[in-house]
């Protein structure tokens, strides 16, 4: 197994997340796409840690842990916003939240 296989897996995961964010209409599906992209970033951190010259530095591990914490905060705020928008306009579709369009 070489570095490029794991990086390719991570790139495919990122592309799935990007496609979901750009094409799905439901806000929750957009959030799922963002989570997939964050997972791809975490996989990269762990991969580069595993292949690093000095794995006892733990930099990749710690970066992944902090990234997971930020992702958890992001998911909580994102879903709170989705629930609030649903209460205001009775829809979770991203296209329906167009009040600022004028």
């Amino acid at each position, binding site marked *: *197994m*070489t*570095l*490029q*296989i*794991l990086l*390719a*897996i991570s*790139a495919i*995961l*990122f*592309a*799935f*997340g990007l*496609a*979901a964010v*750009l*094409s*799905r*209409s*439901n806000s*929750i599906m957009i959030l*799922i796409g963002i*989570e*997939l992209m964050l*997972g791809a970033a*975490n*996989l990269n951190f*762990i991969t580069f*840690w*595993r*292949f*690093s010259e000095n*794995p*006892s530095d*733990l930099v990749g*591990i*710690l970066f*992944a*842990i*902090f990234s*997971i*914490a*930020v*992702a958890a*905060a992001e*998911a*909580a*705020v994102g*879903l*709170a916003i*989705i*629930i*609030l928008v*649903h*209460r205001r306009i009775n*829809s*979770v*579709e*991203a296209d329906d939240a167009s009040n600022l369009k004028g």
Partner: protein
Amino acid sequence: MTCPLCDILKTCCADPMKFLGDWFVLLPALVLLLAAGAAVVMRNLIHAALCLTLSFIALGIVFIALGAEFVGFVQLLVYVGAVAMVIVFAILLTKPERLTKSGSAFSGLGPAGGAAVGFVALVALLGFIFTSPLAKKPLPAPASAPVAAIGEALMGDYVVALIAIAVLLTAALVGAAVIAMEDKQP
């Protein structure tokens, strides 16, 4: 008396990591990609959330297989335990069967546009990955990240970052609760 199957099973149970070799990482990675792809294309939101959960579980197993046990278990706890559950809650609270006025599950760039942009990004990334001089780097000796060392690093060199992330998480969760709270009209 020995049978070949028993021998295989014995080797597998004695040291699954050695028996499976690279497949210990590649098998969950395959499940990860299949589940993530399914989550992206599912029309039913609950199915998409379940596929996302499966991909989180597979990602945690990939982390564990790569030697980052602590991150793998944190991934399982935080993503499978918390994030996936919160997503399912949001789906149940917002009646996902309502579709857009156009009745489509896709908007923005549409399924073809999203797939095209994703494909272009993938080709660009893969181009860099496979032409990089680092690409052919073989797997180094097994690395491990003992939890004690992670704890010492978090309490030592990274204590400022730990405090910052604690403040961020508290602020984000309190903010999320305030945002989602019912407006009380006086």
